[in-house]
């Protein structure tokens, strides 16, 4: 039981996909101009992650090793298309706020990474826990980013105006430059709190997804 609990909680802090293993940076930076969008993106990604982890761990013994990556990509994109339809029908506001980044969930490396590293090697039950944990970790990271950027950049939080800040909001925080800045600071703080050294380098060689991307070696 305790090992199952570990599968669930590891994604939230210890192996947080965005802040510790540094995957899925594109949506983390792009959609977090508002806290609500961060939650929306996080939950949409969690849905896709859960679906793909379940299906991939079910078919792991049928799929030949040499064609596994194309198969995973098709499964993932199938779930992306489903969530695209669902959001368009039921939450059209969020659908247009996420825009191009909704179909781009399909190439979010967190999902392919979990499929390759975890779901293709573990049972369905564990894969579900892993997906939920990773999804929560990703959503929390996006929510934190969105909260900071919305409070400082728009003087509001979840649409509620904040008295002093809303008079002269620092627009730079909701602009692209602010996204990079806030993410850098959040990663520094999280690693400080976790008493870990911040990851030295983002490089393809150290990336847990290197195998999935097909990187053959370091550069050169």
């Amino acid at each position, binding site marked *: 039981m305790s090992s199952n609990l570990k599968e669930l909680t590891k994604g939230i802090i210890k192996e947080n996909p965005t802040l510790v293993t540094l995957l899925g940076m594109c949506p983390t930076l792009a959609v977090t101009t508002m806290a609500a969008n961060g939650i929306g993106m996080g939950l949409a990604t969690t849905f896709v992650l859960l679906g793909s982890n379940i299906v991939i761990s079910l078919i792991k013994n049928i799929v030949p090793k040499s064609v596994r990556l194309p198969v995973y990509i098709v499964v993932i994109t199938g779930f992306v298309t489903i969530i695209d339809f669902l959001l368009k029908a039921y939450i059209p506001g969020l659908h247009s706020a996420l825009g191009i980044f909704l*179909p781009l969930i399909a190439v979010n490396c967190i999902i392919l990474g979990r499929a390759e590293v975890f779901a293709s090697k573990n049972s369905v039950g564990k894969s579900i826990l892993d997906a939920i944990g990773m999804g929560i970790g990703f959503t929390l990271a996006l929510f934190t980013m969105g909260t900071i950027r919305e409070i400082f950049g728009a003087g509001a939080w979840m649409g509620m105006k904040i008295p002093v800040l809303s008079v002269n909001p620092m627009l730079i925080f909701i602009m692209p430059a602010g996204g990079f800045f806030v993410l850098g600071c959040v990663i520094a703080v999280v690693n400080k709190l976790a008493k870990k050294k911040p990851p030295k380098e983002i490089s393809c060689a150290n990336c847990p997804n290197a195998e999935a*991307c097909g990187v053959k070696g370091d550069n050169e």
Partner: protein
Amino acid sequence: MKEIFVIILSAMLIDNFVLSKFMGICSFLGVSKKINSAVGMGAAVVFVMVCATLVTFPVYTLLLEPNGLEYLRTLAFILIIALFVQLVEIVLKKIVPPLYKALGVYLPLITTNCAILGVTLINIDKELSFGGAVANAFGGGLGFTLALLLFSGVRSRMETCNVPETFKGVPITLIAASIVSLSFMGFAGML
């Protein structure tokens, strides 16, 4: 002609893929450490973006749209790009070995680079003509290369700097990216 030029310029500078649309951040941060690899990656991205547009645009307009299958575009595009990159790799290896040597390492990486899928989807969303779509892809690729080159210069200067312990490594890299992105904001409203 003028229209094509405007599309290239705006994709390259104003709507820069990395610094204002946040696409392809992984490769932007991963490959920008050395100027040589930045040039190789940039060239590979320009090449694949243009080629991917040349293939996906006709597939969408001639195959998916007339049959009411627009919703399959993400799936179709991903498969086309992945297939196509493999094909390019094999062909280059056989026919132009020097080019393969220069770009080869970066080609597989590109399959999961969201800028490639992004540019093909944006071409459709913006309802560009075929020529416009190719120009958009070309400008986008050039913009990616420009950002990568500039940033690799910044990073090589940063290596000798004394950074606070907590910010060493990735955090300071992101903050440097923020400043480079700030400089690109100057292009906003140019056109």
